[in-house]
């Protein structure tokens, strides 16, 4: 018995358990590459997490069981109901929040490490450097994610909040101040104020970087913050000499970086430009055309829209954030079923940055039981618009804006878009003629092929559905 017990606490054995844990993470994540294996992949990764926690609890000298349990119980009591009850439409803010607390944990751990070792006295320099890096990035991630949460939850205004040009100077100064604190600590100072200063400067930086970012840029920001938290976790692992933390954190860092780059590419914007903030803003929603003539929009009724779609060969639904806000996904699915019953082919065109996080629209449509094979990525569907009778744009704006293709002076010029204007007719569901988050006017709305159906997206779709039933 004694032999068995001591073997359990052997550091090589614990090291082996960590290898099992991170192998399960990698294997689980590779399962996420396909819808058939994804559920199992996620469960495998969760098993890996259990293995990693058990291994850690076996570390020789482990104690304070009561306090560890207290933290775990509080975390579970908060996390489980939140995850169970969150609506699919609120998923971006939930992910932002979960990401933020991860970053917060990293920053707190680094802070305590500093306090415990009297400013990393007697520790190797690299331990201090990785801990300080973790503290800065973790703090940025915590506060940045909370601002992102606030914006998505509409506690804070979604529009860019900025103090103008000075913003970037202030941000650089904050970063410099945080790094200066870190340098002072790494070179031997153990002043508590320096560490608190570092955390506060990084916190302010997190706030000021995310506040000026508009809602449409959220997919990039959330991916970036996810990468940040991952990297800071890896740094914590370096400081604590813990392989499972290093591997898990680094994998998340890599995946977050890939997603950030994909999102930025889908908007044809550089990551620094997005982080620097302020998109559009100077361009106002116009009722006046370039040549000074009044631009007019044609509005339509639910009955007309229903007839138009019922006799179409193919309807392509283009969902955007407006669909998420109105929670219209189930109504859309019901309408699509009716159309399919009338022999109309229905497809969904998903722009990579539609919504507020990567893949946001796919999750909502999956929730509404839309078949996987009807969800088309941008490159697959763009060739089809020319032979599509009706494109139904539901609360999407910038991702359909032809200016991105045609007007070199437009702020979104060069961004790949869904070419809905090439279809034979377009119906746009929109709350009002206010321009989107980016504040950029969309010539699609003034196209003679386009008719506008104003109102709440869900109510409009339901009205169209009723009309379809009556046909």
């Amino acid at each position: 018995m004694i032999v068995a017990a001591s073997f359990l606490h052997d550091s090589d054995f614990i090291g082996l358990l960590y290898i099992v844990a991170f192998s399960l993470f990698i294997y689980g994540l590779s399962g996420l590459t396909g819808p058939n294996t994804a559920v199992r992949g996620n469960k495998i990764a969760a098993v890996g997490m259990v293995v990693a926690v058990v291994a850690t609890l076996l570390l020789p000298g482990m104690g304070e069981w009561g306090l560890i349990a207290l933290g775990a119980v509080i975390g579970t009591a908060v996390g489980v109901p939140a995850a169970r009850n969150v609506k699919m439409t609120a998923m971006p803010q939930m992910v932002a929040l979960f990401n933020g607390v991860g970053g917060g944990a990293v920053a707190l751990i680094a802070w305590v490490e500093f306090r415990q070792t009297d400013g990393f006295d007697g520790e190797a320099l690299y331990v201090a450097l990785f801990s300080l890096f973790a503290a800065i990035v973790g703090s940025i991630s915590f506060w940045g994610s909370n601002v992102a949460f606030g914006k998505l939850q509409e506690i804070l205004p979604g529009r860019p909040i900025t103090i103008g040009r000075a913003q970037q100077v202030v941000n650089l100064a904050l970063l410099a101040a945080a790094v200066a604190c870190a340098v002072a600590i790494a070179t031997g100072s153990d002043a508590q104020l320096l560490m608190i200063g570092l955390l506060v400067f990084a916190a302010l930086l997190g706030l000021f970087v995310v506040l000026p970012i508009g809602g449409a840029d959220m997919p990039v920001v959330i991916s970036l913050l996810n990468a940040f938290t991952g990297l800071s976790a890896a740094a914590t692992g370096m400081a604590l000499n813990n392989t499972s933390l290093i591997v898990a954190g680094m994998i998340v860092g890599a995946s977050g970086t890939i997603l950030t780059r994909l999102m930025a590419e889908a908007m044809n914007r550089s990551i620094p430009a997005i982080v620097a903030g302020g998109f559009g803003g100077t361009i106002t929603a116009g009722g006046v055309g370039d040549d000074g003539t009044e631009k007019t929009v044609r509005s339509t009724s639910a009955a007309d829209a229903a007839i138009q779609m019922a006799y179409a060969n193919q309807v392509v639904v283009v969902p955007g954030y407006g669909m998420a806000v109105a929670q219209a996904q189930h109504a859309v699915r019901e309408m699509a079923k009716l159309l399919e019953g009338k022999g109309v082919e229905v497809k969904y065109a998903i722009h990579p940055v539609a919504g507020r996080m990567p893949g946001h629209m796919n999750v909502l449509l999956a929730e509404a039981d839309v078949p996987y094979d009807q969800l088309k990525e941008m490159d697959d569907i763009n060739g089809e618009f020319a032979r599509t009778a009706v494109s139904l744009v539901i609360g999407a704006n910038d991702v359909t804006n032809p200016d991105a293709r045609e007007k070199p002076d437009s702020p979104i010029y060069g961004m790949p878009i869904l070419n809905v204007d090439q279809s034979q007719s377009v119906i746009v569901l929109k709350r009002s003629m206010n321009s989107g988050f980016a504040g950029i006017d969309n010539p699609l709305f003034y196209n003679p092929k386009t008719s506008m159906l104003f109102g709440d997206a869900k109510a409009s779709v339901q009205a169209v559905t009723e009309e379809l039933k009556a046909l």
Partner: protein
Amino acid sequence: MLVQNLAILVLAGFVGYAVISKVPNTLHTPLMSGTNAIHGIVVLGGIIVLGLGADGWLNKLLLVIAIAFGTINVVGGFLVTDRMLGMFKGRRGERT
């Protein structure tokens, strides 16, 4: 130790890059929330620093908060990912 750990760090970066590059757009949200759950592994950091001996009530308090944060991240992240993926899976079952 430093050099070995750096080697692990760099290799893990490449592995992560290789694995994640293959994920289709459709699964980006579950991927994000799944990886999000995985970085909740920082909870281990909290357990290690607390369990192997933290002095003073403030340090302990900060670490309990860190463990709670990490647990929210892990438990919430995996659950929410499971819920999302369940929807993708359920629909597939319907068709077969």
